[in-house]
Structures are given as C-alpha cells and as structure tokens.
C-alpha cells in the first residue's frame, strides 16, 4: 500500500513539476540541415544555436526566463523538413522557429507559419523568401542581389565592360544566375558568355575555354565548394589571365585549402566574419564578431564557419525582439522583430520593417581578396 502511495505521489509530482518547468522556458524551434549535402551550412548553425542557448541560460536567460532550443535535422531533404515544421508547430508548440538552412526547404514550409501565426526566421538567402513579404517570414543572410551589386561596383571601378558568368546548376547557382542576368545589363555591362556547370562536375576547362573565346574582361563564378575551387584551378591551368570574381558562397577557409595557389588574387564579396581582425575597431559589428569567434573557439575548439553566423543572427534577433517587447508570445515576437532597427549581427546591421524582412543592404558585404593563403579586406 505504501509503495503504491509513493508511486502515486511521484507521478503527481512529475505531472505538476514538468509542465511548470516547461512553461518557464521559452521554446525555440530550429530546423537545420545538419546532415546531407547542405551539412556545411547546418552543422555550424546547429553548433552556434546550442552554444548561444547555453551562454544565454548561464547568464540568466532573457527577461528572467530560460530558453530551450529544439533542433531537428531535415537531412537537407524537403519532406523531412515539412515533417519537422509540423512537429514543431503542432507538438512542441514553439514560440518561434529558426531555419531551415536551405532556400528550397524554407519556401516549402513558409506557408504553414502564417496559418499557425508563428514567426519563422530563415537562415537561407533566396530572395523569394522575403519578396514579396510574408508577414510571418524573415531571413538573416545577405541577399544575392547585395553580393552582385558589390561585384558590379568593383567591376565598374576597374573599368570592365564585358562580363562572363559561370554558374552551378543547383538552386544557389541558378538564383545567382537570374540576378546576374538582370543586373549585368541594367548596370550597363555586356554579358559576354553565360556558362553552367553541374554541382558534381570535376572539370570546367571546356566552359573556361569557351569563355576565353568570348573575350570577356572578367568572369563571375557563382557556386559553393568544391566547384568554384575547380574553376579557380582550371583557370590557372589554362593559363587564363582574365580576372575571376567568386560569390560569397565560397567565403570560408575550405575554399582556400581546396583551390590552393589558384585562389591567390581572386576577389569576392564576403561578410565581415571572414576577416574579423581586419574590421576597424569602431565598426558597430566588431564586438559581436569577436564575441562569436571567441565563444565558438572556446565551445568547440574549431574555427567558425561564416555560415553559422546566419543562425547566430537569427537567434540574436529573436532574443532582441523578446527582450524589447518583454514578451515571448509568437505574435509579439513577430511585431517586435519588425521594429528592430540598427541591430548589429555577424552578417551585417539589421533594420527590419513591415516592408523589409531581410533587414540588410549591400553594406553587409566587404570585398575581400586572397593573399598568401589568407583573406584580406579591400576597402
């Protein structure tokens, strides 16, 4: 009899204690591509979120409340992503969702969030995510448009007029290609060649030979590792001297490792995260960048990847919105996100508004080059 009473007491205690604890912590969902082809994005993003959660809770949480991040891995697969989104919204009842890591997955789940009235802060860059504006969907990475604008400003300053583009035939490359094809003629340049390569291709000499024949002043290559490294190597192997621009998709040390000496002198737009020590001390992002780099090195013993910064900013923005409105209700978080102005993150300085759910402009990018195997900021 006594034992039974004990069990009942224990169960009763658990039933009352657990919900009390759960109600105390703010639940934040995250859907990230921790494994699969996009794991180079999802893995650092997940590490970043866990690190920030621990840091925040150790410092007493936000508005006196603890934060609990629930991370699901979508394995870079759109179906798994949809299932994870439904689980977060229906079962876990999270206040806000961070992610997914890739654009296709974000677009596939964004419609659930307006009906559930839960804000989604995506770590993916496609312009379609925030244009036209969905009141419940935000994103943190710099847009392709900003990167292309920076490249074309640089090309104009150097007096180039005929530009060739070489893009990868996946979502990232084709989004970049459409922006390039729109902005190159609009800014008064001539599109000399428009070449494409496959994400698994290992040799781009055919495309480069064709571009060589088109007599371009410069080449713009749009892709993520390892393709652009092959392009850089093939360019040197063919003895081409045409300047080569890369996209921000390769702004990580892995690219320098893969391309080796062929990376020397290439120019690309990148977030300030690749060259933190070269950011001037009075820059608004300096403190955030240094704290992130140090914290990550301490927590994981490895260098940061610039892609983890997207999750860092998503988390920081959500916390800012919660702190600002002193409320962790989904609708309040959404409203307060739109009121954020001049907030320094790792990718740039965010100013959200009802018309702008990306919050960045081209000043989020600096032009960098690779010199002696290291990133060097150009002014």
């Amino acid at each position: 009899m006594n034992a039974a009473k004990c069990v009942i007491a224990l169960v009763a205690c658990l039933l009352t204690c657990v919900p009390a604890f759960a109600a105390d912590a703010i639940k934040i969902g995250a859907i990230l591509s921790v494994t699969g082809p996009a794991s180079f994005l999802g893995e650092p993003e997940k590490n970043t979120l866990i690190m920030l959660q621990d840091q925040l809770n150790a410092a007493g949480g936000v508005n006196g409340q603890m934060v609990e991040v629930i991370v699901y891995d979508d394995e870079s697969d759109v179906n798994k992503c949809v299932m994870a989104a439904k689980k977060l919204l229906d079962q876990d009842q999270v206040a806000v969702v961070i992610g997914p890591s890739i654009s296709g997955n974000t677009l596939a789940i964004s419609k659930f969030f307006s009906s559930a009235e839960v804000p989604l802060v995506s770590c993916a860059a496609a312009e379609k995510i925030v244009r036209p504006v969905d009141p419940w969907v935000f994103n943190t990475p710099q847009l392709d448009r900003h990167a292309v604008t920076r490249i074309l400003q640089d090309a104009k300053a150097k007096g180039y007029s005929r530009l060739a583009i070489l893009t990868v035939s996946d979502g990232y490359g084709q989004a970049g290609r459409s922006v390039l094809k729109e902005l190159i003629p609009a800014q008064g340049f001539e599109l000399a060649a428009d070449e494409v390569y496959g994400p698994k291709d290992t040799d781009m000499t055919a495309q480069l030979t064709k571009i060589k024949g088109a007599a371009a002043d410069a080449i713009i290559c749009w892709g993520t590792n390892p393709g652009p490294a092959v392009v850089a190597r093939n360019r040197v192997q063919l003895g081409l001297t045409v300047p080569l621009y890369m996209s921000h998709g390769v702004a990580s040390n892995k690219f320098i490792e893969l391309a080796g000496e062929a990376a020397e002198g290439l120019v690309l737009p990148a977030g300030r995260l690749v060259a933190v020590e070269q950011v001037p001390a009075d820059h608004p992002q300096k403190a955030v960048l240094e704290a992130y780099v140090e914290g990550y090195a301490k927590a994981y013993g490895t260098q940061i990847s610039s892609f983890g910064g997207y999750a860092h900013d998503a988390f920081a923005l959500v916390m800012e919105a919660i702190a600002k409105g002193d409320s962790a209700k989904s609708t309040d978080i959404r409203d307060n996100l739109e009121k954020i102005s001049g907030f320094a993150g790792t990718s740039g300085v965010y100013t959200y508004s009802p018309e702008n759910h990306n919050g960045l402009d081209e000043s989020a990018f600096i032009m960098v080059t690779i010199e002696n195997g290291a990133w060097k900021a150009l002014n």
Partner: protein
Amino acid sequence: MDPSSLLQYLITGLTLGSTYGLTALGFTIIFNTTGVINFAQGEFVMLGGMMSVYFMHSLGFGEPAAVVLAVLGATMAGALVERLAIRPVRDCPAINLIIITIGVSIFIRGLAMLLWGKDTHVLEPFSGNQPIMFLGAAIMPQAIWVLVISLFLLGALKMFFSGTIHGKAMLACSFDSKAASLVGIGVQRMVLLSFMISALVGAVGGVILAPITMTSYDVGIMLGLKGFAACILGGLGNPFGAAAGGVILGVLESFGAGFVSSAYKDALAFVILLILLFVKPSGLFGLKDSKRV
C-alpha cells in the same frame, strides 16, 4: 572555333574519359567472372582517393607510400566486400547480388563520411602543377599520368586475361561457373580475385584522378554512374569496349559543353548513349548474346 580550343576540348575529354574508362573496367572484370554488376565500383574509386589523402595528410606518409598503401587498402576492401557481402549469399540469383552491391556502396559511403568527414580534399599532383603548352592548349602533367597509367592498366589486364592461367580461369567462370568448377577451377577463389582486381583498378583510378578532380566521400556516385554508362556504351563484358566507351563518353561531354551548351552536357552524352543503344543494343564493341538452350 579555333584549333587550339578544339584541342583543349579533346584533351579535357580524354582525361575525363580515362576516369570513366577505369571505372568501367572495374565493372567489366566483376561482370566477367560473376555476371553481377557491382554498383559499389564507384566507392572503390572513392576509397583510392580518400585513403591517399588520409595516409598522406593525417598519418604523414610521403605521396608514393600513401598512394601504394591506399591502393592496397582498397584492394583489401574489395576482398572484404566479397567475403562478407557476396560469398554468404553466393547461391542467390544475380539480381539479388546486384541489390546487395547497392547496399554495400551506401554502407562504404556512410563509413567514409563518418571516418573522414564530409569535406572535399585535394591531393598534390604527382609532378607539379605547371601546365605544358602544346599548340595553344594547356596539358596538365597529371593528365599525362592519367592517360599513361590507364593505358598501362588496360594492357596489363589484357595480358592477364588472355596470357595467364588465372585470367583464363576467370573468363571460364563467366561463361559457365558449373562447367568451370567441374574442370577444377576454384570458382569462389576466382570471384574473390575478381573483386580484388576490380577494387585495385578502381582505386588506381581514384588515386591518379584525385589531384585533378579532388575527392570527397561521395565522388563515387557520379563516377559509378558514368562508368556504368561507359560500360554499356562499349558493350558489357568487353574490357576494351569499356575503356573505349569511357573515352568516347568523356570526349562527347567535353565537346558538348564546348559547342552546344555546358548546361546540357550530361544530357547530351546520355542522349547519344540512348540513340546508340536503340541502333545497336549490345553496345559498340559488344558481341551478340547467343541464347543457350
């Protein structure tokens, strides 16, 4: 179209094609002894490249030693695949074995991902990175290595199959394994040997290619697919056909990218493959399959 571009496309195509050809050779060797298409062939290629990188960068061996160890390691992997995955179910129909090889390929790929991570790695070229200029086209020293080693392997295999007792025994197994065992050939031993040789050929391909194409845990998928296509193009079961099929596929791809559109180069190569199979279903160099009664 100037002649130097033409030459450049041809060189690119030949280098690419040699890689497809070497993968295709591996398919042929196993098919010839067992009648099974080994879909883990691409993984042997990956193992060659990734193990070289591992021995060289993580364990600090010199490049020649790392390369030899990697090829030996992949050959051992080939033997293990036969021992652990194929031999226990040797009496099953070929289609079951083929599906098992697909499982093996997924397993090896997963293992490589866990052991060595998801990153792409580079291997230093065997003899420098300075291109040789020839009639306005650039030839990488590594491309010459690839062509020479491929030709050498092809010749060695030809000698093996038509000049040695083991090679002939392996061929006998492919024609009729029961009859072969009746005349005293150890069929199981030949199957083991064929897996080892094809892993060796694949790994050599992976090693000589890694400096050009770079390597990662998942390079085997595409190479396996292209190698299989090369095999079909040249006629399944004919080693020379397989090598020629690979070279033709590579050159078609390269010229397709150069003359038509780089966006459609893979599609172009496969469309030509389809057309050829409609016209000559046994492949370019395949013999007509005579039905046994």
